[in-house]
């Protein structure tokens, strides 16, 4: 982890929310393209929530202060932690599985800030990382509560009676 100042942390926080919003938009489009509009709508809603988080950060800290050049982002992972990897998608993706992926993304964001707070070289950075970790912990609880309200997915949800290769 090489984030050592508040400005860099803020840029990462903004990018994380922005990229999560863009990824949900992208995933929603993938789902609409295969007529899985239930999950398309769900991802659209999650995109709006993440976009609000990004907008809030811009409002509080000024958008101009939140940008780094692409190579300056340090995520400790292949992509920003809160973005669901595209490879997790499936055209038959059911609701509970989709929300489980969203929960994993919130957990990754939480772990990112917790680790940053633990490793912070100064108190100011530690306090801000801890504040972002607390926000992510709230998001984790919200998604967990959301998951509890959902019915279980059918067991073999990914099985297709008319599969792509049917020889």
């Amino acid at each position: 982890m090489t984030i050592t100042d508040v400005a860099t942390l803020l840029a990462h926080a903004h990018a994380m929310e922005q990229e999560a919003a863009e990824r949900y938009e992208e995933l929603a489009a993938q789902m609409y393209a295969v007529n899985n509009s239930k999950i398309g709508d769900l991802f659209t809603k999650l995109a709006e929530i993440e976009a609000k988080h990004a907008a809030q950060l811009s409002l509080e800290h000024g958008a101009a202060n939140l940008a780094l050049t692409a190579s300056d982002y340090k995520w400790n992972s292949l992509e920003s932690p809160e973005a669901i990897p595209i490879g997790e998608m499936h055209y038959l993706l059911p609701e509970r599985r989709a929300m489980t992926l969203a929960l994993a993304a919130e957990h990754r964001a939480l772990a990112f800030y917790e680790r940053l707070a633990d490793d912070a070289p100064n108190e100011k950075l530690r306090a801000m990382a801890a504040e972002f970790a607390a926000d992510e912990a709230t998001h984790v609880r919200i998604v967990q509560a959301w998951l509890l309200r959902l019915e279980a997915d059918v067991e073999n949800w990914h099985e297709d009676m008319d599969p792509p290769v049917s020889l």
Partner: protein
Amino acid sequence: MSTETACPLTARDYKSELKPVWCPGCGDFSVLMAITKALAETGRRPEEIAVISGIGCSSRLPAYTNCYGFHGVHGRALPLAAGLKLSRPDLLVIAAGGDGDGYSIGGNHFLHACRRNVDLTYIVMDNQVYGMTKGQPSPTTPPEWDSALAPGGTGLRPFHPLVIALAAGANFVARSFSGDPANTAQLVLEAIRHPGFSLIEILSPCVTFRPEDRNWAKRVHPAAVDETQDRARAARRVLTDDGFNTGILFRGDRPPYQPPYNPAEAGPVDFEVEFRP
């Protein structure tokens, strides 16, 4: 003349309105993301760029960009791209496609594109299968891959595109993974900026016909050694690596091929000069 100017365009400006019809989860979505990010960084406007392809799922990519594009005939992306670049050297030309398109039916064009070293960037989305035609083995498919269309596997040794590109004269060779779009974008940008023929092999899983490749994210790793300008050394490294090393592997210094006349204005006599003994 082609120029790179500071320009506040973003990746979104290089995407078309058309939504991809790739299967959800396909690696090609991330490749599109990485290419549009890289194009934004070049500062070249969409109308100064042409993306040329053949046929395949991956070859649909030009339609999803806002640049000029040509969705050509199967296996023929490279001659189209080379012809375009020679007649319009002001354009930034990218050829894109799959392992089937580029290494099977387009294999001979691939050799000669490396040899000619025209200044263009070739992006191969290698999923080790023919995705579009429902899962036939391609030249890069592992021999033991057992599938409905190749029961028991082909038993055939896979083609080694990066080594072949090096032997045939490619001037820049890199490997990347679709699930790592930031680094992929960086490599695409480097390839575009490097003069001559640049090949980027992007491991891009086909989640429908090779769902087991979703685990490539766990197998890829940055190459343990730095890029080299020594072609033989690069070839030896690539021949002996595990196929999952990513990064720039070779950066050469061959001057790009440019005919001594302007092809757009040339007549048959100018062309003939090149073939006289």
